[in-house]
């Protein structure tokens, strides 16, 4: 009576090897704490973090073809989660490089930044593998709390407290809502594992059914908050704007990837999420996000806010896959979701990389101190093509991919979504997607125009750029080009699981 069916799964070596990447990160955190006690140096800790993540990434490679394996009842590792975690780790590595550029100009040593970054990655790792509401909730919170620490990290910034508080309070509210939802679901089903079977009699008891449906709704709205799906998107642009650029990148990539993967996992496993009411709910959310995200982005001049709004729209597009999900084509669903997420992540990484480069270039030395450029306007991109063509090319690729122009990954991703939607005959969603993408062009294209505009002032000193940055920029150009032309490369990594 006291033990559930899964409780006896012991932790043997085989199972531990499955969550090795997560364990590596966790040990990395513990070691980093010791390292801080031994020697406080900006460079050491940054290198250490990078090494830990690289090792985790390597450890993750062998998991890409793994059969679904349960690790206690909390986690379940399969090839999809491994793929998603690689995306997370890659984004974290890029962000780490950007963070190091951002932090190294300061005298103070920022150990806690790197620790929080690793904690964030750990949270994401738990989320993508979670198979239980408890681990979902813990991953969610680990992600949120570390992000709260990070969004307001630049304490001298005017926006530090504001964005910190906005994120903290809204995210705490959202997680309370989500928890209440989980509690309601649990109170009706008596099991918090994703694999649980929902007793049918729920639907005959009026009061329980009410709580059950409310539970689902609250749960989804909590997740929707994290994914910044309208109408739970309000925080997105503000926090994006206020956070330091590397942190915004983390929010735009890691948090979105992890949350979406866990949402799909949950929906796939718990088929009650496919009932009509829930579908209607998701459809409202998707339509609202596609329209609101695009419309709000329309005349936006602040680059980070623009990306924030566009992320709202993209999550709306992606939600379509969940809505039209059916039991038969699970592997296709996963393929679409992961491919779209990879395209989205690559595009975001590219744009943020350039944004960070511009920010560091535009920062001006005031006496001893480095005045960090916080606000990044669209006009700051003006003439980039004539100054640093490689960076501009990267932005063009990324923006085209986000807009879904052919020969980019974004196009293939949208193609996947649309073909799923047409199979399910979800015409309304398709129409909205098309309208949304149409509006989207009206703000994506001006970004490209701006790159080519002649700049008024050329006084910006051309700092010497670090080699890693060159390496990253060129490799992302190549990745963007190659994956647009040969998208099969990515699809091959997304190995379908025999369920």
């Amino acid at each position: 009576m006291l033990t559930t069916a899964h409780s006896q799964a012991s932790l043997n070596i085989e199972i531990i090897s499955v969550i090795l990447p997560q364990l590596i990160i966790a040990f990395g955190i513990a070691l980093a704490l010791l390292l801080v006690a031994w020697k406080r140096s900006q460079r050491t800790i940054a290198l250490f973090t990078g090494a830990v993540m690289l090792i985790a990434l390597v450890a993750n490679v062998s998991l890409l073809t793994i059969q679904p394996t349960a690790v206690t009842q909390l986690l379940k590792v399969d090839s999809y989660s491994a793929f998603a975690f690689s995306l997370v780790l890659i984004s974290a590595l890029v962000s780490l490089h950007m963070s190091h550029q951002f932090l190294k100009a300061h005298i103070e040593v920022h150990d806690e930044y790197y620790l929080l970054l690793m904690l964030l990655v750990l949270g994401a790792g738990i989320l993508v593998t979670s198979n239980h509401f408890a681990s979902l909730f813990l991953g969610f919170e680990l992600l949120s709390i570390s992000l709260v620490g990070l969004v307001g990290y630049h304490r001298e910034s005017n926006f530090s407290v504001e964005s910190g508080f906005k994120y903290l309070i809204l995210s705490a509210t959202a997680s309370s809502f989500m928890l209440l939802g989980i509690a309601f679901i649990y109170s009706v089903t008596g099991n918090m594992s994703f694999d649980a079977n929902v007793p049918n009699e729920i639907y005959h008891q009026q009061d329980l059914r009410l709580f059950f449906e409310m539970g689902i709704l609250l749960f989804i709205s909590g997740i929707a908050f994290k994914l910044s799906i309208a109408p739970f998107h309000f925080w997105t642009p503000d926090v994006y704007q206020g956070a330091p650029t590397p942190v915004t990148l983390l929010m735009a990539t890691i948090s979105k990837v992890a949350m979406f993967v866990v949402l799909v996992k949950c929906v796939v496993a718990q088929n009650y999420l496919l009932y009509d009411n829930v579908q209607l709910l998701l459809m409202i959310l998707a339509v609202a996000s596609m329209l609101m995200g695009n419309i709000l982005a329309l005349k936006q001049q602040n680059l980070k806010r623009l990306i924030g709004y566009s992320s709202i729209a993209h999550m709306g597009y992606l939600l379509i896959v969940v809505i039209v999900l059916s039991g038969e084509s699970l592997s296709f669903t996963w393929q679409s979701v992961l491919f779209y997420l990879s395209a989205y992540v690559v595009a975001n990484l590219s744009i943020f990389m350039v944004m960070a480069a511009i920010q560091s270039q535009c920062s001006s030395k005031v006496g001893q101190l480095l005045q960090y450029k916080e606000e990044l306007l669209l006009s700051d991109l003006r003439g980039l093509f004539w100054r640093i063509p490689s960076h501009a090319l990267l932005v063009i690729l990324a923006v085209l991919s986000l807009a879904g122009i052919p020969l980019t990954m974004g196009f293939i991703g949208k193609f996947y979504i649309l073909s799923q939607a047409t199979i399910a005959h979800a015409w309304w969603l398709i129409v909205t997607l098309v309208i949304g993408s149409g509006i989207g062009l009206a703000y994506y294209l001006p970004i490209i125009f701006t790159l080519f505009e002649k700049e008024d002032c050329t006084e910006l000193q051309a700092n010497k750029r670090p080699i890693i940055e060159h390496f990253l920029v060129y490799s992302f150009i190549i990745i963007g080009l190659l994956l647009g032309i040969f998208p099969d490369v990515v699809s091959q990594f997304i190995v379908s699981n025999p369920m």
Partner: protein
Amino acid sequence: MLTDLATIDSLFYLAATVAVIASLKVVTGSNTVHALLYLVVSLLAVAVCFYLMGAPFAAGLEVIVYAGAILVLFVFAVLMFGLGKDETINAPKSKSVANMFGAMLLAFALLLELTVIINNAQIQQTLQANVVSSKAVGIMLYGPYLLAVEIASFLLLAGLLAGYHYAKPDVQGSQL
């Protein structure tokens, strides 16, 4: 037996009412410290509810950790940094008897309940039958939920680090 069940029920509803009223006082209050104390009352009432629902371990934790530790953190913060200042200025000055009476009534209701529960053997017996023991919770925590506990420790670490970063004094002569 029936009467006893009815008693447990009514005790639960009483504690629930206390919790609701105290929570209302928390969100409507104007004096920070008063609101915090009402929050303690609310938490204690909820602890009684837990006890009546057959979760004595959770009830204990609610009192010790929640009311005892977390709220004390609040109180410390308020007192040490003078956070409640701007609110106390606007607080009503009148310490009317009715005001105190309300608070005392809530506390008294809880006290009454506790004595009734502890002294009534039959209630104890019924509760014993339904209890989910702390042993079971422990087995769960260190069995299937072992990873969750580990993750929770990382969660606390994250909270600690974030809190440390925000609260530490600014370094002189350095941006950031």
